[in-house]
């Protein structure tokens, strides 16, 4: 499903441009995935487990080798890890600090790598996030570990934040705090975020663009607003006709009832018996993925 992020942001420079990312890992293939993050915007990457979100992010960060594709950061090829990483902050699903390190010492150890590291800000964020400075990292709860990762990612003043499933396993309060922290980060119009998650509600009200991955393929790229405007849920009784059923993504039938998702442009195919309703981001992702699986099965 084609989409050009730049339709909305044609004059906006890209913070991140990855094209044709292809990674083979055992049986899994990340197949020529493109990712664009315009400067000043939040891009949410969604999809089920195993869709390729983490592999895409690792390919962007150079953590896995690509068989093809390239990555540009702020208009420059991101071939040198040192130069690339100086401009980005990374938060992954779990903290990547030694469990023996004390929370306060993480800033000392990591900060020395960045000329722009702000130790006062790190200390302030520890207080703001209610993180116990003298506790070892291994003793932190999942939510505290995530807040520590977020604090570390912010303190060298990155222009781009890349987050991979940061909210997985967090309670609603911790998730809300993280999303609020991202909103504060985005107050600066030069900041950008790439945020992968399978909890799509985190993206509502935060993401400007959304990219759906499934089975190593990019199945949708567009603005979140377009996504909601483009699709609707449909359900009805009886046979709406062959053309109408073909237009249903993720069609499910039980007895004489049918349900699924359609493009709003196809709504004229359905009679008055069919009931249309707005689709949430979750609904759209589920049905797009389901439709992809149905196609693979030849349904």
């Amino acid at each position, binding site marked *: 499903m084609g989409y050009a992020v730049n339709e909305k942001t044609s004059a906006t420079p890209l913070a991140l441009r990855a094209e044709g990312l292809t990674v083979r890992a055992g049986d899994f293939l990340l197949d020529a995935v493109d990712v664009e993050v315009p400067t000043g915007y939040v891009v949410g990457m969604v999809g089920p487990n195993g869709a390729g979100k983490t592999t895409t992010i690792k390919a962007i960060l150079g*953590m896995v*080798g690509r068989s093809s594709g390239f990555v540009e950061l702020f208009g420059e090829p991101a071939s040198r*890890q*040192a130069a690339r990483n100086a401009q980005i902050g990374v938060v992954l699903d779990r903290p*990547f*600090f030694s469990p023996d390190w004390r929370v306060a010492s993480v800033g000392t*150890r990591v900060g020395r790598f960045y000329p722009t590291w702000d130790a006062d800000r790190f200390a302030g964020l520890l207080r703001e996030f209610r993180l116990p400075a003298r506790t070892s*990292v291994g003793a932190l709860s999942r939510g505290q570990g995530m807040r520590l990762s977020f604090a570390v990612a912010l303190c060298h003043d990155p222009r781009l934040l890349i987050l991979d499933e940061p909210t997985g396993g967090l309670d609603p309060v911790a998730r809300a705090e993280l999303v609020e922290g991202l909103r504060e980060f985005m107050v600066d119009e030069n900041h950008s975020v790439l945020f992968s998650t399978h909890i799509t509600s985190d993206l509502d009200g935060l993401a400007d663009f959304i990219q759906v991955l499934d089975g190593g393929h990019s199945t949708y790229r567009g603005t979140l607003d377009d996504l909601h405007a483009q699709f609707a849920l449909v359900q009805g009784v009886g046979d709406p006709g062959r053309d109408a059923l073909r237009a249903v993504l993720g069609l499910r039938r039980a007895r004489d009832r049918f349900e699924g998702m359609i493009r709003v442009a196809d709504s004229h195919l359905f009679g008055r018996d069919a009931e249309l309703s707005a689709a949430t981001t979750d609904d759209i992702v589920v049905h797009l993925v389901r439709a992809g699986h149905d196609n693979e099965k030849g349904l």
Partner: protein
Amino acid sequence: MIHFLALDLHGLVGRRMRLLAVAAMLIFFGIDMGPAFAIPLAAVACVLIASDLFLMDERGRLDILYATLPVGRTTVVLGRYTTVLLEFLVAAVIGNTVAMLDVDFGRAPLGPGMLVMMNVVGFVIVAVGLAVQLPAFFALGYTKARFVGLVPPVVIAVAGLSVGRKADILQGLAAIVRGRGVSVPLEAAAVAGCVIVLAASVLAARALYVRRRL
């Protein structure tokens, strides 16, 4: 690289109990087997504990951290080799100190030939041990490579015990050393060979680490 080295050396503080245990082992064996043996034993200890750094990497997912920091993987490899060689220097100082102290306790004095030879033997042990271990750890990480990491210490231990049980070999060796004094060309060649082996190991480790999926 200095920042990575500082981070790696900082990690050594967390291993102080293990380092103390190794130091105690050195003193014990040094006193038991003879003063000169404290020096190669220090090298053996260094090879034994080299894997700890990779264990810490794995426990803390530090390879992921390194991949997010503004340092390249080449820097990580060079920094790690430097850390381990600095460990060897510290171990060598301890080994030499134990050897000297042991002599002070009434044993025969160590001649310069024996002292230099034992230090060269120590360096050979470290160079060969690390040259085998470190590329494996960089390629596979601690868990997958830990058995490869055990090979050099086991080979060294078996060889050491075999030689150690044949007192006549040791006495003959000591006599040769005493008789010829310091053989600069031989020892220099050994050191140069070790440097070449270590350099080849660094190149192999870098090539393997760059390809590793994190």
